[in-house]
């Protein structure tokens, strides 16, 4: 059963902060992950944002598409989460896109992407096993 985030009428699953798999080692932690600070001046803002994941081409579709993610989570961390969820081979790459146009840097925080490119209260991200939009 997927965990449901309490503030979202049960539609967005909570993405675990830690490794999805019990065998994940420290080495898998994303580079330069920086969680946001309390006193960033945005005290009313939620610490988490809603993400909708969409598959591109023949990439497997995730059974759970809607996730609630910590703002400070990086694109790399999200990419690893999706790869593990889809049980991709270590050799298989995963590309993440915003606006169906650009691939954000792996160390980019999802919270920042949400601020600039979120709509209807969520950030839509497309993922693909091959380069979809160059």
């Amino acid at each position, binding site marked *: 059963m997927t965990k449901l985030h309490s503030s979202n009428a049960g539609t967005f699953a909570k993405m675990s902060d830690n490794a999805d798999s019990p065998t994940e080692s420290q*080495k898998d*932690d994303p*580079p*330069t992950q*920086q969680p*946001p*600070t309390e006193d*960033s*001046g945005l005290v009313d803002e939620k610490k988490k944002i809603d993400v909708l994941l969409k598959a591109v081409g023949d990439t497997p579709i995730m059974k759970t598409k809607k996730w609630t993610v910590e703002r400070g989570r990086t694109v790399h961390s999200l990419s690893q989460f999706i790869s593990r969820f889809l049980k991709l081979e270590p050799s298989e790459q995963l590309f993440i896109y*915003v*606006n169906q*146009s*650009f*691939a*954000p*840097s*792996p*160390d980019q*925080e999802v919270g*920042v992407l949400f*601020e*600039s*490119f979120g709509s209807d209260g969520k950030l839509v991200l497309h993922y693909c096993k091959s380069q979809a939009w*160059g």
Partner: protein
Amino acid sequence: MADDKDVLRDVWFGRIPTCFTLYQDEVTEREAEPFYLLLPRVSYLTLVTDKVKKHFLRIMKQEDVEEMWFEYEGLPLKWHYPIGVLFDLHASNTALPWSVTVHFKTFPERDLLHCPTNSVIEAHFMSGIKEADALKHKGQVINDMQKKDHKQLWMGLQNDKFDQFWAMNRKLMEYPTEEGGFRYIPFRIYQAMSDRPFIQRLFRPVSADGVAHTLGDLLKEMCPSAIPQDDLRSLRKRASSTVLRKTKGALALTIIQDKSKTVR
């Protein structure tokens, strides 16, 4: 804006004199001499340091060489940040030349992205251009450009060709006159003492009343602590200098703040 050719040229041709020194623990066959290079502010470390690699590889065995990476005073330098941002953020208050240490071992996986080929740099660069255009024009201008136009942008940067670059970039810097500006201004504010990589939020070039926003307006809204204020009571001094760089259709602001300790 594209009429300020002098400003554009000054930004493009900005250089940082740098001294590259091999890390002392690297294994060499002979004494390593430092290597001096003028680094373009608008480019990326891994794109402009082939000569540095060649220089040090001459005195090293192949088995002692892995992916090259750079460090300044113990801090790994992120190649995917523009060189000018790296310098302004970490070394702007120090004497020139900028002293950078070169490593060929123990790549810091947690701090740096790998950069095996130039196509990785190109992909990163183009993604930045697309992200900026998504903010400026909803991506319409970059999407209407052909693949060869995108290539020209990249080649212009790679080969340090101002005219080649701006022939394409000027399209990305245009906006309908009736709008008064882009949809949103693509900016990132980097701060020397911060736990976040940078500040990036939506910001319109014109206020609701139709008045053009200034840099000061942007800072006031996004980073109010960057604006110097004298606080005589606590004897706390803040010196802040803002280095403005307008390049590739996006604004990278590096804010250097120096807060001395409060005397009680």
